[in-house]
């Protein structure tokens, strides 16, 4: 039973730090966390759904590419601190090519003259094992409807990472692994949690879920002036958790960093992207967050207790990337009296000119209808607005036309249009399906250099 006030967390704890919440996250915050956080493990989550499909495309062009594009920056800055502070690093920055990532890390270590042992976890790439007749989880239609497919990655769990941790590697680099599993794996390894110890795995999953978006636990993506004020956001600290052997935990951050960790920031993050709080499914466990309590035990300290678990799912989720064409966009601004009317007229002109060529076209007025359509439109009249026209095309050449037509409004559209911009981006679509665990074989490869390697 868990109540708001109860016995303190046991003294023996493991400290896990959340050092990245997405591929583009800040590089300075994890350095400070590793330097001053007294961490046992630093964990970097760098893979959004589309990131790995884009990485797969890079790998196609170059067999030694396909890992996190900022890996070199991350490792060069972190490695000296990790060695000095004896912090192990775990992350999915291997993206579509964990082996090449391991080689790249060893090369950096040699250059910095620092010893390193890297374990690369592979087996998530199931493109060759994919059943194209399998239904997608989104629509139930077969995968083959989403061609051409460029990547298929199963979400590995903590179990696949255990041999890598058991190898004694300083750095464990993975491809697609469920985000909370990156945190559950070190807990299973250090505490010897069994794969059917569902309550402990659920508690570890809750901790992982709280930390996986890094700054979002510390007031990032939370702040609102006058309502939810967060101090020092330009120096937002990243979080860590002290996790006890039974899975109870306290989340906190390094003193002197910006941001706040409160019950409110923790509740927002606990529920973030959770489609069923009674059954949050990962490869490790089905976690029930309905009984989780979050209790402030000090400044920037919140105790996390009460998650329960049920059996893990029989099948693994697979994220499948496919080429979905090209997104063409054009924007142009209008200001002053009648700005919205002129922007709307401009939109009508472009729509009329493009309607024959583009089946799907979206015409919005930024400042009025671009985020929520007409649902809340008409309450305010902004001083300035921007027209935005977006459409999908099969080719880059065709997508360019959308921006060109918006730009042509300069001399052919309503009065006073300015600041036209045009963009074309390749779109990678993502759909999901399920795969039998038996068809997914995790593997670990060691790459090392330095003192340990020579002794071995």
């Amino acid at each position, binding site marked *: 039973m868990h109540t708001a006030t109860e016995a303190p967390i046991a003294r023996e704890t493991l400290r896990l730090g959340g050092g990245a919440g997405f591929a583009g996250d800040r590089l300075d915050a994890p350095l400070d966390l590793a330097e001053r956080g007294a961490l046992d493990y630093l964990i970097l989550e760098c893979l959004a759904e589309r990131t790995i499909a884009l990485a797969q495309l890079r790998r196609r062009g170059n067999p030694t590419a396909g890992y996190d594009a900022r890996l070199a920056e991350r490792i060069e800055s972190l490695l000296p601190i990790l060695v000095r502070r004896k912090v192990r690093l775990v992350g999915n920055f291997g993206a579509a090519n964990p082996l090449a990532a391991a080689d790249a890390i060893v090369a950096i270590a040699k250059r910095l003259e620092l010893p390193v042992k890297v374990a690369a976890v592979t087996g998530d790439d199931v493109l060759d094992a994919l059943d194209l007749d399998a239904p997608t989880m989104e629509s139930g239609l077969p995968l083959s409807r989403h061609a051409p497919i460029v990547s298929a990655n199963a979400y590995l769990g903590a179990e696949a990472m255990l041999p890598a941790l058991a190898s004694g590697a300083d750095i464990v680099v993975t491809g697609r692994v469920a985000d909370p599993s990156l945190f559950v794996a070190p807990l299973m390894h250090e505490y010897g949690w069994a794969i059917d110890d569902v309550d402990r795995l659920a508690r570890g999953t809750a901790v992982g879920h709280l930390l996986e978006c890094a700054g979002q636990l510390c007031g990032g993506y939370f702040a609102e002036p006058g309502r939810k004020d967060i101090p020092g956001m330009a120096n937002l600290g990243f979080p860590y958790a002290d996790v006890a052997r039974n899975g109870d935990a306290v989340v906190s951050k390094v003193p002197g960093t910006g941001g706040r960790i409160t019950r409110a920031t923790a509740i*927002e993050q606990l*529920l*973030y992207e959770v*489609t069923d709080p009674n059954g949050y499914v990962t490869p490790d466990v089905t976690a029930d967050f309905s009984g989780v*309590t979050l209790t402030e035990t000090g400044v920037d300290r919140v105790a996390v207790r009460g998650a329960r678990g049920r059996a893990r799912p029989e099948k693994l989720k697979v994220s499948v990337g496919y080429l979905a064409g090209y997104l063409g966009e054009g924007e142009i601004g209008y200001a002053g009296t009648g700005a919205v009317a002129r922007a709307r007229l401009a939109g009508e002109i472009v729509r009329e000119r493009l309607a024959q060529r583009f089946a799907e076209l979206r015409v919005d007025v930024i400042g009025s209808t671009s985020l*929520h359509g007409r649902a809340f439109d008409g309450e305010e009249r902004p001083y300035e607005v921007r027209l935005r026209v977006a459409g999908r095309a099969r080719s880059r050449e065709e997508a360019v036309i959308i921006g060109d037509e918006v730009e042509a409004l300069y001399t052919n559209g309503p009065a006073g249009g300015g600041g036209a911009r045009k963009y074309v981006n390749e779109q990678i679509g993502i759909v999901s399906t399920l795969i039998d665990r038996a068809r997914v074989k995790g593997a670990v490869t060691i790459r090392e250099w330095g003192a340990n390697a020579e002794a071995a």
Partner: protein
Amino acid sequence: MPKLHELAHCRAGDKGNTSTLSVIAYRAEDYPLLARRVTPAAVAKHLAGIVRGEIRRYELPQLGALQFVCDDALGGGVTTSLALDAHGKTLSSALLEMEIEP
């Protein structure tokens, strides 16, 4: 009539074409009012034209929170949407515009 914005905070999340929206009471004593007024039907009415699918509500009284899971809410899905905010990140602000009868 007060807006939900005065009583609660919200974070939007995305999974494919599904949007998750938390509604978290600032004060524990307001949770029963939120549970009474912020129903799936009320959210469906408020977000009409945005959420096209089913809306499910989960209650987390010990956190003073409700969780709404809204299907077919992201213009076909994050990765292929033509929308400017493909993730529906700003839907949290839209939901907090809801007027709450005391």
